[in-house]
């Protein structure tokens, strides 16, 4: 097929549920060997568009009959469900965000790929196996012949995603739809998967429809960028043009939000508030019928840190590095094995929180609070916003205990975090992710803490919402002199928020210092690796 015939051509695609248009008259073409990034926030209709191409829309959603979807020379709108089955997987393939749930856990990964080959290409078992090993080699799975017989749980997240890619490529499709394929992965692995996709595009002339909300990823991988907002295509441009001269105001804002703002942040005075000294947290590994302890999992293995008043310390590391465990140890949600958590009490001087009994810990609970990653599980669905925010005031006896005054204070807190007093009678499910995160912040603020442990508070949010939440946290810090322990895996937000950075790997701090020191002149190889894997859009700005 010639390079000048589009692989995928959408014209006036509309998707509606009942009377509402969820996707409004989208038109674009994709050519062989093109990586086409479809960008937008959650709910913008980007995933719906890709599902419409596969004709896999959920029940109740209908494609407008005037829409045109053409795959090379086939009119997909005119295909019967039976004909679509031969097209899916064979000519259009798809990979998903969550490799954990896309693979069947009880079938060997090699078999799962071979199955596709047998089904679509009619290969015999032996040929199929040989082909699978070949594919595994192509997508960079080491010891391919050996891994053929492994089960999904034995593979790492990145390898599972590679298996998914191998499965998608098995029948040599013309078009690959990648729906946020790297969102669930750590930065280093994300970089590897992106490289793999680019390499496959070059070798096979594959067209890739890449759906993402991450501008950094777009900058690294895309040839063409399309931005969707509320079901409409607001901008469509080549990558270079797109990043140089965004036209639509929404796109401009999106780019501004996703590129880190480097700010010099200097503390006026430095007075230590919290010190961790050789902190160790071990989790017992139990086995056998009597649950005997056979080993220790060293989640935190000798960490020494210091946070000053009004300072933000960013704790950076990949998943499983033990960074969240540190936060939980400070809150005494897990027990420490060794080391000290020293907290500066206004009256008593330094107190070791790690050795306190629960009752003695109570006065410090109001000084240290926490906000969480997932705004959907952080709020009790059976309580109103008022009850949620008031809970800490009642339990910890903060402020007036008079219900009317407490309610007035809740009103004030809601205004402070950018919500309205009339929201207080509602239940959490009536709010969006960003609003929920604000409620979580209000809940923490209600007890007037000195330190807030922010456990990945923005990683589940869209970029523009993320920028708003970070701004809110910053304002609160300026106003009340709060300290933050900001736990994150996302390097790009570090320069925006932090005074200091500590990089964590396998339970240990490998490097720490001011933001300029660590990001500008990384010493440890792991820090350098992390920075290298960061999207180049981010790198350009922060280095």
């Amino acid at each position, binding site marked *: 097929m010639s390079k000048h015939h589009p692989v995928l051509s959408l014209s006036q695609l509309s998707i509606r549920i009942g009377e509402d248009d969820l996707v409004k008259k989208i038109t674009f073409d994709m050519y062989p060997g093109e990586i086409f990034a479809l960008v937008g926030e959650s709910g913008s209709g980007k995933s719906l568009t890709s599902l419409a191409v596969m004709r896999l829309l959920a029940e109740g959603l209908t494609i407008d009959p005037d829409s045109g979807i053409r795959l090379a020379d086939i009119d997909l709108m005119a295909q019967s469900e039976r004909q679509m089955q031969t097209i899916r997987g064979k000519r259009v393939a798809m990979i998903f965000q969550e490799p954990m749930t896309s693979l069947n856990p009880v079938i060997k990964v090699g078999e799962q790929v071979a199955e596709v080959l047998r089904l679509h290409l009619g290969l015999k078992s032996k040929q199929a196996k040989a082909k699978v090993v070949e594919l595994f080699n192509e997508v960079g799975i080491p010891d391919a012949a050996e891994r053929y017989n492994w089960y999904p749980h034995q593979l790492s997240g990145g390898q599972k995603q590679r298996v998914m890619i191998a499965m998608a490529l098995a029948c040599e499709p013309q078009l690959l739809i990648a729906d946020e394929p790297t969102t669930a992965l750590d930065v280093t692995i994300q970089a590897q998967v992106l490289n793999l996709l680019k390499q496959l595009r070059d070798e096979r002339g594959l067209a890739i429809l890449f759906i993402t909300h991450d501008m950094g990823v777009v900058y690294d991988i895309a040839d063409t960028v399309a931005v969707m907002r509320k079901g409409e295509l607001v901008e469509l441009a080549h990558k270079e043009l797109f990043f140089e001269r965004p036209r639509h105001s929404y796109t401009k804002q999106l780019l501004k939000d996703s590129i880190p703002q480097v700010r010099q942040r200097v503390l006026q005075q430095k007075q230590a508030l919290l010190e961790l000294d050789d902190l160790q947290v071990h989790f017992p590994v139990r086995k056998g019928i009597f*649950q005997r302890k056979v080993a220790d999992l060293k989640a935190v293995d000798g960490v020494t840190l210091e946070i000053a008043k009004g300072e933000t310390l960013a704790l950076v590391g990949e998943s499983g590095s033990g960074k969240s465990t540190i936060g*939980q140890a400070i*809150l005494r*949600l897990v027990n420490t094995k060794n080391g000290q958590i020293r907290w500066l009490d206004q009256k008593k001087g330094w107190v070791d929180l790690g050795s306190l009994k*629960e009752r003695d*810990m*109570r006065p410090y*609970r109001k000084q*240290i*609070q*926490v906000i*969480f*990653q*997932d705004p959907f*599980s*952080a*709020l*009790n*669905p*059976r*309580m109103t916003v008022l009850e949620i925010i008031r*809970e*800490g005031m009642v*339990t*910890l006896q903060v402020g007036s205990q008079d219900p009317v005054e407490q309610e007035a204070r809740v009103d004030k807190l809601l205004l402070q975090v950018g919500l309205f007093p009339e929201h207080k*009678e509602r*239940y959490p499910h009536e709010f969006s992710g960003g609003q929920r995160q604000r409620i*979580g912040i209000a*809940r923490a603020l209600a*007890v007037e803490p000195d330190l807030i442990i922010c456990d990945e508070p923005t990683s589940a949010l869209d970029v523009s919402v993320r920028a708003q939440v970070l701004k809110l946290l910053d304002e609160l810090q300026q106003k009340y002199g709060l300290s933050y322990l900001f736990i994150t895996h996302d390097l790009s937000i570090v320069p925006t928020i932090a005074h200091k950075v500590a990089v964590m790997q396998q339970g240990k701090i490998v490097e720490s210092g001011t933001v300029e020191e660590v990001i500008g002149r990384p010493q440890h190889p792991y820090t350098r690796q992390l920075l290298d894997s960061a999207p180049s859009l981010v790198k350009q700005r922060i280095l």
Partner: protein
Amino acid sequence: MSLVFLWTDLLIWILFGAVVFGLHSIKKSKQARKQWREIFESPIAMASAVILSVYVLIGLTDSIHLKFNQENRWAPAGYENQVLSPLDLSLWHLVKNQERTYSAPFASHEYSRSILYDENGQVQQVYRPLKFAAVHLENPDNRQVLWQDLIKKSGIALLAAFLLTLVVFVFHGYFRVRAYVKRDIRVKPKRLPWNWGYLTLFLLLAVMSILYYLSHFYHVLGTDKVGEDVFYQAMKSIRTGVVIGTLTTLVMLPLALFLGISAGYFKGWIDDVIQYLYTTLNSIPGVLLIAAAVLVMQSWIAQHPADFGSSEQRADLRLLFLVFILGMTSWTGLCRLLRAETLKISQLEYIQSAKAFGMGGMHLIYKHILPNLLHLVLIAVVLDFSGLVLAEAVLSYVGVGVDPTTYSWGNMINQARLEMAREPMVWWSLLSAFIFMFILVLAANLFADRVQWVLNPRNS
């Protein structure tokens, strides 16, 4: 006249109070009110709820026991020192009108021939006429006369049923109008299918009042071996079914909630102990355990007759004991479910946040875990209800259920077992028990279905 409190009466009224209190708290919570509204948006749920409430109402009127002294103007004739409920009083004509033996529904003569000597001293085999049925008719053998009488009387009863429904409609209408006037104009909730509720109520009342009115003139569902009216038996059995279906959950719930949440929340050795406990209990066949316990109790009652006042009290205690045993053997399923859910919930971040506020132990469980388990509990209770009613029937059939003197569908079916082998067959006992039980179980199942559908978060 004095009130007599049987143990099951006391418990069922306590449970009734608890349910009323629960409804009150539902009224206060916006979220719960919305969910219950959604449940009743289905016509089937509405109809089932009407049927269930009528059953429960009958069960409740049968759960007040009165003992009459001499000289009481309310007391029916022949009441001497009997313990009676309002239901007994309203069906007193059936207790009084006992025949000699089997008779078919609406029959005017006995079902089998008996030997009689006529004036000449000749032996004759005749169908003797019934003492209390169809005696107002001059010629009850004439089918046409019988039908005319039935239709005429049914018409009167139907009219009564219609008027009764109208009374309920007007009474309820007052509240509906008031709610409509006070409504929030901005929200437009879906209309509840009241018309289905009224239709069900009317049908139910029609059948009931026809049966009730005709029971003054006929044995509408026939009589059993000793001539007792089957309609009376079936009505009295309602209480037994409702008691077993509801009280058992009262025994089961605290156990399942306490153990399930403890296991899931505290984990560690507490979890191990509770898990071993319910695994052990689960591995003993349920019927075997129940049979053994009932037999032990039977022999104990037989050895200590002095501890029980009357035969009513003895029968009641046996019912209570059965409830207790059923409760002890049926908590494991819900417990397992609650443990798993608690394990999941206690990992969620709002629990961690509550812990960061220094909350712990019972307060945290009450505030954050229990409310998030309630939908499971409710689903389990409604689903278990019909299972328990059926379990009673099975156990009584096997002979390890309620006391033989207690009216229950299980006992009716058990007695009907031999009657089925007769020629000609006596079918009405079995059929009546079956239909009364079937309607209750079907309504409970349909209602449970809807509750589960609405409360299951995966369906929204």
